[in-house]
């Protein structure tokens, strides 16, 4: 036997009446013309679906080419802005060589792109530029940064490592073995650039391998940081130091799905 009190019966009855009235208000009513816009203010802007991005050998190579232009643009900014001063000015010839190497890499990669049926990509990766390079340059060129030239070299070192990792990383995704060899040939050049810059930032035999900064506990820049080429994040410390002497740490990553240069991506 159900034990329903008079109070329960009234509560259930009240809810039923309220629910019926609510549903009636939401539904069609006699004499009212239905409108598609009844639930919104103004007309809804039609949306355009994003094109589907298929990750092919061509896309991976176009992405690599875009990073070459990131490096070219950065080195040009360094040279044109006179950002290497004092002892670092003697690196000018090396920076010119690095820039020219990157242009040669970009040209070589774009030849592979075209030979693979794709369209050459001849500008920098906007996402890498926006996320990493421009914020780093803003920190480095701030008026209160006493280490402008050193930090510029650190940025160049980080970008060379990023390029090395990008080429090394795409090896596992490229389907054509010959393209994998082409990619790793260029990766070697980037790695060699990184070693030259690492020796400028932290030189000597004792600094070739991995070491740790005793004060900060963070890894020092190393020419050969590990036995195997890393695909992890690239650390960059730059800008004016804090009161504790610590610079801003930036973390750079190789292009992910959002940073790839798909077939439909063009230089703006």
């Amino acid at each position, binding site marked *: 036997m159900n034990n329903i009190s008079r109070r329960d019966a009234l509560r259930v009855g009240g809810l039923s009446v309220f629910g019926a009235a609510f549903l009636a208000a939401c539904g069609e009513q006699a004499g009212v013309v239905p409108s598609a816009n009844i639930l919104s203010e103004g007309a809804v802007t039609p949306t355009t679906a994003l094109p589907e991005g*298929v990750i092919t050998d061509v896309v991976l190579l176009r992405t690599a080419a875009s990073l070459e232009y990131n490096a070219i643009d950065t080195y040009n900014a360094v040279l044109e802005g006179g950002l290497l001063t004092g002892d670092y000015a003697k690196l000018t010839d090396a920076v010119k060589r690095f820039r020219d190497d990157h242009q040669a890499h970009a040209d070589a990669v774009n030849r592979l792109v075209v030979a693979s049926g794709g369209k050459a990509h001849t500008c920098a990766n906007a996402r890498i530029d926006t996320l990493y390079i421009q914020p780093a340059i803003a920190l480095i060129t701030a008026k209160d940064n006493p280490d402008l030239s050193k930090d510029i070299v650190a940025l160049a070192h980080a970008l060379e490592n990023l390029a090395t990792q990008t080429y090394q990383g795409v090896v596992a995704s490229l389907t054509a073995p010959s393209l994998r060899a082409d990619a790793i040939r260029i990766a070697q050049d980037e790695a060699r650039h990184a070693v030259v810059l690492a020796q400028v930032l932290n030189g000597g035999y004792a600094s070739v391998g991995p070491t740790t900064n005793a004060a900060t506990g963070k890894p020092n820049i190393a020419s050969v940081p590990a036995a195997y080429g890393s695909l992890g994040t690239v650390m960059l410390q730059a800008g004016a130091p804090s009161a504790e002497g610590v610079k801003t740490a930036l973390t750079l990553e190789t292009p992910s799905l*959002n940073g790839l240069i798909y077939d439909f991506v063009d230089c703006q």
Partner: protein
Amino acid sequence: MTTAQARFPRSTPPAQPTDADKQLLLFTQGVELAARDLYKKAVDSGKFSDDEVAMLKMFGEHHNSYAQAMNGLIGKVATNKRNDSLYSTHVGQLASAQSAYASLQSLENTLATTNTDILGQLLGLDAARILASIITTEARMAAVFGTLPALSLTSALNSSANSLAPKIAQAPMASTETTVAP
């Protein structure tokens, strides 16, 4: 572009090394063991400072690690024998520190070039991934000898080394595509 809209094409290379891959990786193992032994010879010569010895030991250990990594990829095919030809080419040049560095740089350049040539023949992705990470480090080690004791940009960045890699043809891959009879 969102991640949900990006995808890889359907055809992908095999993960495991093929039989031809294993022969190529066996060659890599041999040259890496030769490098390990050459670094040991240099360290034992007593011609280097403590910091230099530490660096040379580290480089030698890297090459030993690469040889062991090949063991993991090729299994029973592994012989763990060094490439005597490569060893003989360099061992006589370890007599002085200066000639030793030039020789060890040449060795690293040769290894990087040889392994790049092998990478260009591999089908299996697992081996390709590991070899790629080895090659970039060997290029770094070669460049170090161009920066120390003094920087020579040309020496650090340029390599004219020739590949020692054999050419081994891959067996035709079995098709995995399904055909429908008309």
